[in-house]
């Protein structure tokens, strides 16, 4: 009995000592730009939702900051020589937050859920998988309809997130109210528009790398307010610091700023052939679109609106990306050339262009700068600001001439291109159609090697830059700011916040 007592006292003391050690007993508070949507990896569609998942739900594979695919829940994978079968070895000793074991059966159930749940938004991402076969407790074979070079990259995002099959079966479409995954933190509570609280999961397979007891995500839409909260110590970290706030954040000794060039782009999408409104000079004559491109000084745009913190661009990938076609560098502004192209197209006297733009500060600022630049070349831009969801709806419906819009970007180059420029592509709101483009894009999906894929994308870029259904303007940088007591944070180009090996030092 005495021994038991001693043991208890020792344990309690030990626990106290542990919790007093640096990195323990700390709740990390992270401010997000908006509230996440439903917390079901199969249903959700927001960027901030993915940031929450980075702490909540593990994926089959992950990426490195250099965009290489690395193991997470799958330890290795092998594609058959004909490209139609992928054999995956799965990590052993992993459990979901509800105690259910992670194994090949769970992976099969997850893929089936992503493909068949009515509300699933992952169907197209996993379309190439035709069958799954459990060949061992921790081995699964995915059978594909044909070679799919993009599949593994899809599994590094929401399509590869593993949820507890038992919890998912019990909750159905309501899974998002109480998500059960296998990530480093488990869902604790959520108050809509206020907070999402996750608690450390003690049975996490990589628990040694996690140094926070809990993490709380707080939606704070206004960037200035987010920064003020960080400076006052109410939050420990924020995502998407405004470029114009950089100087203020960097001047504060208690704040560290980190950034990474994003995978996406911002630009202007033209209506080429989407409904009646596609039949307009801008949709019909590529010379006009080229003229606008020449009229814009992207360097100056970057300086004026983003204090030079972002990256000017002319392709669907940032110039730092391995997929960027270096033979097609960013051209400098040439107003005379722009005027020449307008004259060639029969608009010596100038031409009007209506551009719809999201009604938030940065897009409006960007487009007003573009508007002023274009005016010097004789292009009179009128802006119509719309709420973002309306803008997207009008764009899909073809009720627009041009639209200022961007894309957060995907790890695989296919995600930044295929669906935008192929005939019948899912978000080809331009309704751009070119047989050669379709051929190149489809070939790039199944090409076996990275070099061959790069060559195909390079060739497609030539057409894209000539036709300009999308006119690229700049590439955003993800900018994080956090308390200097937080150590070991690594910025990733996908904009996610990964808390492995991040510590807190008082």
């Amino acid at each position, binding site marked *: 009995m005495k021994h038991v007592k001693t043991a208890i006292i020792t344990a309690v003391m030990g626990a106290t000592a542990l919790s007093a050690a640096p990195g323990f007993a700390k709740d990390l508070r992270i401010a997000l730009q908006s509230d996440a949507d439903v917390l079901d990896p199969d249903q959700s569609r927001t960027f901030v939702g993915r940031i929450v998942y980075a702490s909540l739900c593990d994926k089959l594979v992950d990426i490195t900051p250099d965009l290489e695919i690395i193991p997470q829940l799958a330890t290795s994978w092998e594609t058959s020589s004909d490209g139609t079968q992928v054999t995956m070895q799965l990590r052993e000793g992993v459990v979901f937050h509800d105690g259910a074991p992670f194994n090949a059966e769970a992976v099969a159930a997850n893929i089936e859920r992503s493909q068949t749940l009515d509300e699933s938004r992952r169907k197209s991402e996993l379309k190439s998988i035709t069958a799954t076969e459990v060949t061992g407790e921790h081995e699964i074979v995915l059978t594909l309809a044909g070679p799919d070079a993009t599949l593994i990259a899809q599994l590094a995002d929401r399509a590869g997130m593993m949820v507890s099959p038992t919890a998912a079966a019990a909750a159905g479409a309501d899974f998002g109210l109480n998500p059960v995954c296998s990530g480093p933190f488990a869902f604790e509570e959520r108050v809509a528009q206020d907070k999402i609280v996750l608690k450390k999961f003690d049975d996490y397979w990589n628990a040694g790398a996690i140094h926070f007891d809990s993490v709380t995500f707080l939606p704070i839409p*206004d*960037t*200035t307010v987010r*920064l003020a909260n960080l400076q006052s110590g109410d939050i420990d970290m924020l995502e998407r610091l*405004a470029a*114009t*706030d950089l*100087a*203020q954040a960097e001047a504060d000794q208690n704040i560290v700023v980190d950034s990474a060039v994003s995978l996406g782009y911002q630009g202007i999408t033209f209506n080429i052939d989407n409904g009646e409104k596609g039949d307009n000079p801008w949709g019909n004559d590529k010379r006009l679109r080229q003229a606008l491109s020449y009229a814009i000084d992207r360097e*100056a745009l970057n*300086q*004026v*609106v983003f204090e030079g913190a972002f990256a000017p661009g002319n392709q669907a990938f940032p110039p730092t990306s391995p997929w960027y076609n270096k033979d097609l560098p960013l051209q400098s502004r040439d107003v005379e050339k722009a005027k020449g192209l307008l004259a060639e197209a029969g608009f010596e006297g100038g031409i009007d262009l209506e551009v719809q733009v999201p*009604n938030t*500060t940065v897009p*409006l*600022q960007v*487009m*007003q*700068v573009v*508007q*002023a630049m274009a005016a010097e070349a004789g292009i009179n831009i*009128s*802006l*119509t*600001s*719309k*709420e973002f969801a309306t803008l997207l709806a009008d764009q899909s419906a073809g009720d627009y001439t041009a639209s200022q819009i961007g894309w957060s970007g995907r790890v695989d180059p296919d995600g930044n291109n295929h669906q935008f420029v192929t005939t019948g592509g899912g978000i080809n709101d331009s309704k751009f159609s070119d047989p050669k483009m379709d051929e190149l894009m489809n070939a790039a999906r199944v090409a076996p090697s990275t070099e061959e894929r790069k060559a195909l994308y390079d060739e497609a870029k030539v057409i894209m830059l000539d036709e300009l259904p999308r006119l690229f303007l700049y590439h955003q940088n993800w900018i994080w700011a956090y308390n200097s007591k937080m150590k070991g944070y690594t910025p990733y180009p996908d904009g996610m916040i990964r808390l492995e090996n991040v510590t807190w030092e008082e």
Partner: protein
Amino acid sequence: MKDTAVPDIALDPVLTAPPENRVWKKFRGHGSALLGGVLVAFFVLIALAAPILPIPDPAATDWGAVRKAPSWDHWMGTDEIGRDVLARMIWGAQASLLAGVVSVGIAVMMGVPLGLVAGYFGGWTDAVISRCTEALLAAPFLILAIALAAFLGPSLTNAMIAIGISATPIFIRLTRGQVINIKSEDYVDSARAIGLPTYRILSRYILPNVLPPILVQATLTIATAIIAEASLSFLGLGQQPPAPSWGSMLNTAKNFLNQAPWMAMWPGVSIFLVVLGFNLLGDGLRDALDPREH
């Protein structure tokens, strides 16, 4: 003497006094009303003079002078893409005042005739108009304006129409109430008795007598309409860029409160002053037009 017996009417001080406007006299003695009048006059003047004032083009950008503090070159500083804030303030005054006056004009044009008809005829006419008015009043003013502006599409003209429609019910109610009071007055009865047509009674006997409260209400509503226009522009439903509006200037400025406080200060102060001006003016008019002596 008979001569002396004739009352010397010409010497009566009340009657010999020059015909003085009682309303103007009361208004003149009303300090805050005068201040309101001066404020309103000031903004009206700069708005009217905007095209001839020696100020830069409000949409002209200068990449080399982005968010610069007030200086001799730019008295109120420059904004997020290097435009002169003073020029934008002055042209913005035009948008604000125009929105205030035009939308109240729309509200008066629609509200007063409907109120006259409802109040004078009563019965079914009144019931229908009044129920519709109540339905409109059930939605808060600004919410209704936002909904209408979103429905009509974002532009200054549509914002003015939306605000005008939203402000109409108050004029219907006010006019109707006044008409119900006045239509039972003896002089209206006598006009009816001598067989004047209804439109003459409405326009000659009733309308002039309901006008003073409407004038007061209109002045006060202009202040509300200016705030509504600023709110709609703040939300992106009013004036479209690059044309300046105080509301949209504030919306942009809120992102630069730390780096460029002048961007928010000037439009904020202007909205405050012009609204204060119209409110003081309205209060002064109400006191001056009130037939009761204080």
